[in-house]
């Protein structure tokens, strides 16, 4: 029995994605994991699946520093979609940044539930599922 049916990773770091996938698999908490290596690809996927609720993720782990469209730009575009009535998506910023500026900036965005400092351990993942 999975607690999260559909999770999306938006991150360009191959190794991080590889390891996080492994961790997710080990916890058996997550069904499907989709990966996008920049904000734009993820945004386009969401846009084209607006009417297919089951394809949209329940949880997004969003990196900040990415090429093409970074995490901040993704959040800005994501707000415009106004997905509230369509599906409740919980977004976690997941970054290697430990800059207080980034944390403060993330806290100021309503769509962001929390700021997770990399790496994502099994324990952190369990906590997240608990809080959902």
């Amino acid at each position, binding site marked *: 029995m999975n607690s999260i049916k559909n999770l999306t990773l938006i991150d360009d770091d191959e190794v991080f994605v590889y390891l996080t996938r492994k961790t997710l698999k080990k916890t058996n908490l997550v069904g499907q994991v989709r990966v996008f290596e920049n904000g734009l690809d993820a945004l386009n996927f969401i846009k084209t699946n607006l009417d297919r609720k089951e394809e949209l993720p329940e949880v997004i782990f969003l990196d900040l520093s990415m090429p093409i469209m970074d995490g901040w730009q993704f959040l800005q575009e994501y707000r415009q979609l106004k997905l509230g009535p369509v599906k409740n998506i919980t977004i976690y910023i997941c970054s*290697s940044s430990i*800059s207080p500026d980034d944390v403060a900036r993330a806290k100021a965005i309503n769509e962001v539930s929390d700021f997770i400092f990399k790496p994502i351990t099994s324990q952190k993942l369990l906590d997240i599922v608990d809080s959902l």
Partner: protein
Amino acid sequence: MEKIADYMYALDESAIVAITDQKGLITHVNDNFCKISKYSRKELIGQDHRIINSGYHPESFIRNLWTTIANGKVWKGEIKNKAKDGTYYWVDTTIVPFLSSDGKPYQYVAIRFDITGRKKGEEDLNKSLKEISDYKYALDVSAIVAITDQKGTIRHVNENFCNISKYSAEELIGQDHRIINSGYHPKAYIGELWTTIANGRVWKGELKNKAKDGTYYWVDTTIVPFLKADGKPYQYVAIRSDITERKKGEEHIKKINHQAIEHGKALEFKNRQLVDFCNIVSHNLRGPLINISMLIDYLEESESEEEKNEVQAKIKPVVNHLMEVFNELVESIQVKQDTAIEGEKLYLDNCLEKVLVGFETEIKEFQAEVKADFSEAPVVFFPQKYLVSIFTNLIGNALKYRSPDRSPEIYIESSSVSGATLLSFSDNGLGIDLNLHQQHLFKIRKTFHKHPDAKGFGLFMIKTQIEAMGGDIWAKSQPGKGSTFFVKIKNEKHEQH
């Protein structure tokens, strides 16, 4: 006899009359005497004349009076007397001794006229005169004073004026006031001064003057015109106070202020660099380190040999990546630290030629065309290493991010902009969406295209190099059409931030 009576009447009406016996006891007073002394006749008759003594005059004065009249001579003088109510009055007094046949006075007739008003006026005048001379003294000891006539010729200077101007009074009197002119003030300022005082108005302001030895001093100045009956000035009194120290202080503060602002700017720049650096460490170094640590954790926990090998294979690239980022950082820090690097005279066409050799293969392969016009500004003063870096990175980017629909065309131009050289590198490539990427364009490890060789280091590095030399770099771009990068080179010696 009738005539004498007339005289007596006239005297009584006009003067204050009293008669005393030879001992000084009052035997007769007229109405005027009673009026001024405020005593009734009854109170006076038979009294010693000293009843109206004011005590004002010295004993010698009174003694001289008595000696005179006791010797049968007329005494004249001004006496201050005291009335019954304690007030004083002044009388011009003539005392005539009436002599008996043996030549000795048997009575004295004192004829007085009230001069209290005049005396008071005199006293007031003396007081005023003293006050004026006190003022003059106070002014002279405290201020720098000069008086000129209406033409500006010096008529009077005080000691302070001589001290500060280092001229003697003899050297100044008769000279035109411009002798201390410093030439510092604009004509309009001096013109306004003269218009003001020539029209009879007071002028106040700060003036810089020149002393005899050529040094300057600042004075806070008030010039008061003294006017004739017709309202025109006949002389000007200039009262000054030395404000040289204050002026020096003001200038010093101005300088310090300016320095503080410059330091502030430099500090702000440094701080921005530090924030950038902090971001780099946080984003670009911490990321790969976390990966390595996670990979090692996995390796330790993993029980399957297959998984171990898989994980192990991933460690090396991450370490390489970390090394690469680390080396880039070191390189950029070296640019910031290399304060000794200096500009040299470089021909832009030489530099281009040298750089193009390195791109020969790509240019042939992509059928690229590179054109340049350096005719307007052929030479720059810049470190060769940095100039080569700028050309290599910008030409390299133009080739790397070429459009798949057309052959690359690159156009490089130089122009002069107020002492600086402006280089522009235009291409017809993919372009960059600056609405999205403006703020990241020159940041480390930021890429804007899916390209296997996109590293996000070139623009970061050349910006570091350009800024280290006090220059600037910016870009214009249209996605799908192409980009133009502008580089401003200061052509000056290195200035450290």
